[in-house]
């Protein structure tokens, strides 16, 4: 079944339909229409999946998708155009450029926490780059997956962009087939399996994984505002966001204040009982509910802690003085638990972060710009936002992707296009100018070798200081010579210099 689908997709790609830009634009417009027309259905599906607020869906997913499509439509011609590059002496008369080309059939495996953004944003890039794409939404967000499967063929080309649904075994089956790129969003464990499966066909992969994204609050900052921003980022989508701040690092002296501010903000956001708030989500399923509850075991929360298994509800929870070796600090939480770990100062925080796997995101709250730059310089992470959370994700001009255990490859905006294109190096020569080329053919001698060495040197213009000084001197001398040549010519042509100079132009004309 899947095999046939993929086969059909490959045939559709080989037909060359996706090559003209008009076709890609038309598909992108259709996708945009789908998002606009079906906004309510999409929000409803997510309400059913994870009880997400009907306002959150457009805010977190649809606006982003729409902007990505708009950007792709605007910029596609620029992105897909060949880019000329520098030449050396041997290729000076040739055309040298980089041509982005489609890869073929791309497999996009989405995740359940943002079922639309995590499948459609890569899809936008795949369409823009001229690829065919098999979309595999997560089986855990059931309603959204079914809706996607129903909607996509109605708006896009059926053969080029099929939707395949199914669980683990179907996915494994799918991964056994040959694709030209696999774009996976999800957990590190599955990421490893995807990469191993890709080894068989030497398929390039992009992995968007998670990780424990630290959030450091410096004592020198506006703690009220910081906590409001963190609270929003942590508890939106019920904490099930791959770039949500996973834990807070702060000095013991401000811990109490942080907890208090979060408590107040939670009250502002979700009211006294978050369970009744229409804006607070639920955990996706029972298994994840049990996992998150399990992480909390043995610790007393200072805020929240209530849960309701029947609804998969866990209240926004904050835990104080969590020891770094606790289980909660070993795996990605992916739920509404916010542990606070105390560190002695910023250097200790940097050390704490560097000891662990490279995270997908790092958040720093600090009013001292120098200190935050130092922290950026001494740590590494997929992305970093200072004085806010998650906002680097919203900007499509910034590449989004992990490093180390948090993933490989990047996407968003032009980065998706580049990720799903092959940058083909093109050198268009002619058969002429053979005399220049003769030097490189055997039989060889010293003189010929020197000429080739010269011709292949690149860049033609080197930017060293010495060259610069020579260039300036040569220009001045050249200019001086030019002026004197002009004067000599003027004199030679019989023009009496002194005459027009002394009389001036005025007298000349009147």
């Amino acid at each position, binding site marked *: 079944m899947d095999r046939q689908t993929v086969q059909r997709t490959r045939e559709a790609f080989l037909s060359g339909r996706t090559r003209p830009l008009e076709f890609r634009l038309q598909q992108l417009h259709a996708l945009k229409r789908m998002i606009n027309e079906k906004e309510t259905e999409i929000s409803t599906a997510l309400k059913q999946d994870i009880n997400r607020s009907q306002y959150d869906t457009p805010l977190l997913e649809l606006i982003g998708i729409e902007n990505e499509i708009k950007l792709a439509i605007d910029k596609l011609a620029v992105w897909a155009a060949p880019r000329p590059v520098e030449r050396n002496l041997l290729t000076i008369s040739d055309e040298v450029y980089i041509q982005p080309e489609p890869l073929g059939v791309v497999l996009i495996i989405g995740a359940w926490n943002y079922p639309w953004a995590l499948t459609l944003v890569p899809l936008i890039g795949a369409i823009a780059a001229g690829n065919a794409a098999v979309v595999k939404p997560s089986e855990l967000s059931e309603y959204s997956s079914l809706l996607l499967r129903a909607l996509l063929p109605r708006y896009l080309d059926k053969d080029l962009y099929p939707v395949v649904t199914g669980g683990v075994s179907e996915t494994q089956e799918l991964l056994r087939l040959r694709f030209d790129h696999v774009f996976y969003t999800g957990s590190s464990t599955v990421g490893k399996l995807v990469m191993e499966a890709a080894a068989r066909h030497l398929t390039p992969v992009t992995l968007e994984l998670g990780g424990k994204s630290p959030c450091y609050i410096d004592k020198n900052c506006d703690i009220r505002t910081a906590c409001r921003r963190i609270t929003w980022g942590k508890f939106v989508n019920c904490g099930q966001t791959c770039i949500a701040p996973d834990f807070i690092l702060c000095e013991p002296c401000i811990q109490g204040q942080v907890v208090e501010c979060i408590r107040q903000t939670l009250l502002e956001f979700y009211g006294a009982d978050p369970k009744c708030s229409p804006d607070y989500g639920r955990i996706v399923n029972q298994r994840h509910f049990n996992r998150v509850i399990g992480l909390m075991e043995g610790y007393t929360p200072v805020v929240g802690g209530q849960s309701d298994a029947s609804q998969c509800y866990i209240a926004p929870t904050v835990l104080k003085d969590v020891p770094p070796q606790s289980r909660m600090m070993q795996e990605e939480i992916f739920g509404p638990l916010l542990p606070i770990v105390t560190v002695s100062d910023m250097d200790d925080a940097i050390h704490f972060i560097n000891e662990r796997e490279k995270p997908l995101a790092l958040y720093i709250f600090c009013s001292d710009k120098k200190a935050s730059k130092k922290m950026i310089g001494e740590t590494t992470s997929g992305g970093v936002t200072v004085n806010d959370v998650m906002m680097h994700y919203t*900007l499509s001009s910034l590449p989004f992707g992990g490093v180390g255990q948090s993933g490989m490859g990047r996407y968003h905006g032009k980065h998706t296009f580049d990720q799903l294109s092959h940058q083909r190096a093109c050198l268009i020569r002619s058969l002429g100018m053979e005399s220049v080329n003769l030097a490189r053919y055997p039989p060889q001698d010293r003189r010929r070798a020197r000429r080739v060495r010269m011709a292949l040197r690149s860049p033609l213009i080197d930017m060293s200081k010495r060259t610069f000084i020579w260039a300036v001197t040569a220009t001045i001398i050249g200019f001086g010579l030019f002026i004197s040549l002009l004067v000599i010519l003027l004199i030679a042509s019989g023009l009496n210099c002194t005459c027009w100079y002394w009389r001036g132009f005025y007298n000349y004309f009147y």
Partner: protein
Amino acid sequence: MRMTSALSFLTQVTGKSSRNLQGTTPGNTRDSSVCSSWSLRGLRGWCRLRHTSQSERMETQSQVVERLRETFRSGVTLPEQFRRTQLTNLIAMIEENEEQIIKALHKDLAKPKFEAVLSEVDILINELYYANANLNSWMKREYVTKNLATKLDDCFVRREPLGVVLVIGAWNYPLQLLLLPMVGAIAAGNCVIIKPSEISAATEQLIAELVPKYLSQDCYAVVQGGAEETKALLKNRFDHIFYTGSQAVARSVLVAASVHLTPVTLELGGKCPCLLYGAVNMAAAARRLVWAKYFNSGQSCVAPDYVLCTPATREALLPEIQKTLVDCFGTEPQASPDLGRIVSPRHWTHLMELLGRSKGKVVVGGEGNQEDKYIAPTVLVDVAEDDALMQEEIFGPILPIICVDTLEEGIAFINRQEKPLALYVFSEESSVVETVLKNTSSGGFCSNDGILHMTLPSLPFGGVGSSGWGNYHGRWGFETFSHRRACMLRGWGLEMLNGLRYPPYTERKLSWVRWSASPKSMCSLM
């Protein structure tokens, strides 16, 4: 003289003293005496004692990786000046030892001096100068366009080193394929472990000797060994693996990498087609084709693997090839100093067997000499698509010519095979070149010449599909070994605008957010 300057610089940068400089080259004890003779001169005696005991123990691979990781963590490789010094040292290494390098390459592959200089020494020197000249601009933060919601913030992309990277070289260009990726890795600020191919033994030995002498031993290490050692090495955790070689090994590299989720760059080969069609200046085409094919005795990953042309073109091409071969290598190619040899007896036997199994008709060459590992420049005609020669990358001086009747047939033939690393088209009609370019896919493309596209550091070099994954050369190499970290530095103000995204949500808030996040807001003038 320059050694001492490098030495004192290192001491300066790392803040550590002699200890840095007398760590042994892993897996290579033979040259340690050479190292110590210069590095230990004038140092305290205990250093010497410690040094010998260390070299006796021989650092295990994982210890090397761990040691490099420690260095990387200390942040030594981060400053631009450090990278620049290392690149300059590498230039010095190549320039000062050019004679030795050429000698080693001659020993391994009987590489003519011209080829060695052109394809190994000069291309590296070019790349190094290019990297040195551009490093500053590559390392700069890249500021990006912003939307209204982030108008007042600093948004930029930082290039950060990945950590400890592994570069595995190949034997056909033992120096270039090992050190060229290393240039990118050094420029990007990584610690690098290089693993030269054990098949080109002389060059391997030379690299293991030279690299520790010129580059910081704390940051860069050479690991020697065969398949077993490589397998063991791959078990370690790296932050990037750069592999050049064959598909079969690439698969196991990828499987090994998947355990640690290590990103990889694979530079593989493939059968690079060479299509001749329409009006062609036969003499020039034959000369360029012969040059590209028999360069390094056909052992180049970008060498034209087979020729596709119409029967009429073939008739015109064959005499020209014959003439060019005589012009280039004389009537007795074995005596020509300009023709390389096959790397090992094993590869020689394999190639001769392949030639024996082929059902094509040998029109030029075909002879071989086992003792000399010599195979004459060979051309075959009447080769079928299912011939033995067409099943794998040839990687030797054997050129099959396959006939197609039309251009469409030729393109279809190319598309039936795996995507090649390079594609060559010879034609004086630009429409032919355009058609082939548009309707095929390949790592690189070069019309009316061979190999030359890879000499430009401004062009990315890399395969697609089964010919590889990822690219390098020039800036592309730097990017391959860098992580592009998205950075957004926000202020505390504008909490009103931020407040829009907080719950409790309302319809009005949503429409405001929609407006502010749109990429083409009307305030783009701001």
